[in-house]
């Protein structure tokens, strides 16, 4: 029962939606999301298991999960921008900066703490990437029915999640230091539950849109 939480349920539901609607998708970026969501589910369950059964910190696991999160999301944004201006060098520059920051923070924290600064920077970059996508969409003369346009809802979910988590990321150190407010139903936990539900709902809807779009073309 301890494995059934808002996070795990929403992640699993989104993974299933991805599996059903994206399995036959021709775009590798979309198919990659299935594997990413599967990994997210595994990390979430493993995190609960390590914390509750093994009674050890699950921070190293979440530190590790930041890597696929950054790589998959960055690659997906890159694939969305491809239609407008395919600039691989920006992707490489960003990932290089991220890796340097990530490992520097890990070393400075002696591998004991969460890489919160890197995660915060990553959030800001993804918020900017989402806003930039909106800007490209507004500038684009080609009309798209956004209500049924999968990339738009994927980006919107991502924007909600990373923008909404900014406050938690900024106060991460504080929330961790004070156990009285970092118990199971802490404000951080509640906020992340809400954000997870929003993110995975938007993504699931995006997968449905993607499926319908693929079906209408075939």
């Amino acid at each position, binding site marked *: 029962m301890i494995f059934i939480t808002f996070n795990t349920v929403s992640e699993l539901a989104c993974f299933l939606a991805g599996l059903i609607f994206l399995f036959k998708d021709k775009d590798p970026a979309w198919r990659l999301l299935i594997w990413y969501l599967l990994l997210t589910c595994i990390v979430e369950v493993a995190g609960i298991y390590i914390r509750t059964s093994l009674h050890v910190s699950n921070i190293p696991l979440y530190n590790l999960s930041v890597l696929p999160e950054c790589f998959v999301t960055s690659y997906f944004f890159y694939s969305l921008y491809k239609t407008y201006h395919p600039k691989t060098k920006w992707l490489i520059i960003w990932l290089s900066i991220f890796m340097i920051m990530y490992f520097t923070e890990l070393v400075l924290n002696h591998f004991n703490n969460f890489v919160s600064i890197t995660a915060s920077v990553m959030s800001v970059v993804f918020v900017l990437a989402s*806003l930039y996508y*909106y800007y490209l*969409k*507004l500038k684009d*003369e080609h*009309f*798209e029915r*956004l*209500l049924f346009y999968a990339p*738009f809802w994927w980006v*919107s979910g991502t*924007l*909600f999640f990373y*923008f*909404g*988590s*900014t*406050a*938690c990321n900024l*106060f991460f150190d*504080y*929330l961790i230091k*004070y156990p*009285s*407010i970092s118990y199971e139903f802490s*404000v*951080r936990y509640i*906020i992340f539950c*809400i*954000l997870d539900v*929003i993110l995975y709902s938007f993504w699931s809807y995006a997968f449905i849109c993607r499926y319908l779009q693929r079906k209408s073309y075939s």
Partner: protein
Amino acid sequence: MVLRFYMQISSEEIIFLIGLTSIIFLIAPCFLILYVLSYNRRKKKHLEEKVWLKTTFENELLKTQMEVQEQTLKTVANDLHDNIGQLLSLITITLSTIDLEENSKIASKIILTDDLTRRSINELKALSRLLHGEELISKGLAAAIEFELEWLKRSERYQISFKKDSFKSVADSAKETMVFRLFQECINNIIQHAKASKIVIILEQDNSSFKLTISDNGIGFNVDEKLNLKMGMGLYNIKRRAAMINGTATITSIPGSGSVIAITVPSN
């Protein structure tokens, strides 16, 4: 600084602050998404309008081309009736009056018939050229106007002057067709209503636009009154069609002192 900040306020206040900030950070994307969606709807509307305008323009262009052809056919019909018909009647009359016993007159009548026949042939050749209306415009706006005026000069009712020194060419054939039709209509108006004896046409061009000015010394008219009569191919339609090719039509007239219509159209 941050640590000092933490120490000054209680943990409950921090929780409240984090919660409030997160709520605000969740509301902001909502409005952003709504804005993008509403802008997108406006974009759709704008695109629909663009398509509508394009269709309207194409319809108008087609209508204009048909009107040019119609005008040509009218001229042909008039010419057949007034010129060639008359010449052929004369030939028939001349031939019917030939008396084979009056040898002295036969030669002169045959010469007259020969002359009339040659004139008929020349008239037919001119008509044949006129019938290729589209070909006329393909030779350029100035050539088409010149050809049309040649026809008008034959009536010997008007003193016509055509100046086109600074005019070279227009890249857009649709604009040429439209302006040529406007020219035809202005000339028709002069013939039908102006009671003029003198027509001056000036075709000018600079780097960005070209201008066609048609003036006459006729009876003139009240511009505002005529513009309000939004019927047929009136003055209102001249203005509307000029606007369709991003141009302007300026109409000035004083009753008793003739009129001037100036059509200015951007070259590109």
